[in-house]
């Protein structure tokens, strides 16, 4: 098994140069409260061109390919956000981009992939994970961008860490949602390298607790996965990712579905930000933690691609706030 080396600050700085005119340097915004402060800052990656942070890692990885690798066309496996990013990046470089996606992917994400000129290939969920488990991309001619184990993807995500430390050097804790682990691997590595005392908190839905269960078992573990947080719905942590994430996460916390919905409502009504389920996870987890346990907190709002029917259902059910 290959051991994956943590992305370095130097690598993230090179990536930041590559991403200069592509990525929005999202500003840290306080979570707004009527009754005082929570000391929570949001990093709203919803401002990125594809509505999620994935553009950082995917653009960096594709930019690092040789021209002849790129010309074969790009490919990935994705619940939606990586596919959107790959489609956009493919169009930018003038090469085709395809993505295997679960049939359960939100309609808005699939439509967005097509709108950016990408090719969604919808398959049953089991097929998605079979493809990944069996490394089926090795039989295909495309330049495959693994959604989370690709080191250049992690490095791209790590650029977020440079921004956070620059904008809030006094940050104590950063709450990061975990799906396959690519975000926490990249961002967590950059944060720890720049400020070793920082607390990196891995956040997952209670209904898809793959890292939490793995840590409890002391080894990679597969779990049941049934959550509205479709962006992180990966039921396992891979052998090569587990030690990397385990070494970075100071704590692993779980969020129940109703707390996710409540955080989506709060982000929309107070901060005027539309977050998808996985995008609201970090905020939900921080809100459930007493302020003196977490100090000055940054929560990554990773994405905003939620179907409008789901959003209105959440906003209508919520009590007047």
């Amino acid at each position, binding site marked *: 098994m290959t051991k994956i080396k943590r992305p370095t600050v130097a690598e993230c700085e090179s990536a930041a140069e590559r991403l200069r005119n592509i990525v*929005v340097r*999202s*500003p840290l*915004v*306080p979570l*707004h409260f*009527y*009754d005082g402060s929570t000391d929570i800052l949001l990093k709203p990656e*919803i*401002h990125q*061109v594809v*509505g999620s942070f994935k553009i950082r890692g995917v653009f960096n990885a594709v930019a690092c390919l040789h021209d002849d690798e790129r010309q074969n066309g790009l490919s990935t496996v994705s619940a939606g956000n990586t596919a959107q990013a790959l489609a956009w990046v493919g169009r930018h470089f003038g090469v085709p981009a395809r993505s295997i996606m679960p049939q359960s992917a939100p309609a*808005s994400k699939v439509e967005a992939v097509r*709108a950016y000129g990408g090719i969604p290939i919808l398959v049953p969920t089991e097929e998605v994970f079979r493809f990944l488990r069996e490394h089926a991309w090795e039989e295909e001619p495309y330049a495959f961008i693994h959604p989370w184990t690709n080191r250049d993807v992690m490095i791209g995500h790590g650029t977020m860490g440079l921004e956070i430390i620059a904008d809030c050097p006094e940050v104590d804790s950063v709450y990061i949602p975990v799906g396959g682990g690519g975000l926490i691997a990249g961002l967590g590595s950059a944060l720890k390298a720049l400020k070793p005392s920082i607390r990196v908190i891995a956040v997952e839905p209670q209904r898809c607790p793959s890292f939490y269960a793995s840590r409890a078992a002391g080894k990679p573990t597969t779990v049941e996965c049934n959550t509205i947080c479709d962006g992180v719905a990966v039921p396992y942590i891979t052998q090569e990712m587990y030690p990397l994430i385990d070494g970075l996460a100071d704590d692993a916390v779980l969020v129940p579905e109703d707390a996710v919905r409540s955080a989506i409502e709060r982000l*929309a*009504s*107070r*901060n*005027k*930000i*539309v*977050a998808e389920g996985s995008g609201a996870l970090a905020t939900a987890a921080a809100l459930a933690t007493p302020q003196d346990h977490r100090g000055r907190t940054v929560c990554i709002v990773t994405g*905003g*691609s939620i179907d*409008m*029917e789901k*959003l*209105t259902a959440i*906003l*209508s059910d*919520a009590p*007047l706030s």
Partner: protein
Amino acid sequence: MRPVDAIPLDEIRSARKRIVGFAIRTPLVRLNVDNSPAEIYLKLENLQPIGSFKVRGAANAMRLCTVDELANGVYTASAGNMAQGVAFVARRLGVRCSAIVPDHAPETKLSAIQRLGAEVVRVPFDDWWSVIVTHRFEGLCGRFIHPVTDPAVIAGNGTIGLEILEDLPDVDAIVIPYGGGGLSCGIASAVRALKPDTKVYAAEIETAAPLAASLAAGEPREIQYTPSFVDGIGGKSVLAQMWPLVQDLVDGSLVVSLLQTAGAIRLLAARNHIIAEGAGATSVAAALAGLAGGKKIVSVVSGGNIDAATLCTILNEKMPKCVES
């Protein structure tokens, strides 16, 4: 009542320093839309702490007051975003605050103001309008902050112009929702001083577009006003005090329909993942309709304070019923 003068650039630059810690430097992002008549960017003032740009003017006005002036508290006339802006800043400064509201203002707006620590004073609409026109209210002492014409408020609004020009130096046109004119005149003052060839357009809603009528007539006109879900802008007339400045600084009024505005709210939520209120979306609707030309446009999304029921109706592709405002 003297007409309002143009705001000098120095005062806008000073305002910028004063409002740090109250207002945030909002992002400028590209509107995420296929088939657009222009390159449209969004200045996201809906992301401010109280959901609208008003915190800028409120902060500048109050930070300019002396301790003695603030000792008796502050008050403003507004049921909406200005009341929240003033209340937010007052609480931060430990200053007492009252908001004079027209008696039919909805409960949700009033409770938002009260949760920010301000007292709500309800008066009949005509008395409320009289405060706007005369800048006086017998029932309260303290510093009155006019929601539109206070030069310090307009200078605070002007800081948005500084930021836009820094983030998009080659902007061709800026579209700004027009209520009382304080936001348009503030931004236009900064733009006139720094990049005078940039066009500054007002955006109005078809159900209440007094500026368009006044510009066409060459003098302030009163219009037939119809209430709608666009409740942050759209009055009966242009304030006489503002008219000379508006006429000088603003290059035209772009009028959009309720349907276009609702469509813009949906687009912003679905594609840019942000919530805009009706007024805040009019500038986007105008740019999307091609009314501001075909080059680089910045639409100011002035606020996001829309109630959940109205928002859900619009996101579900229905039109809200006409509401009293």
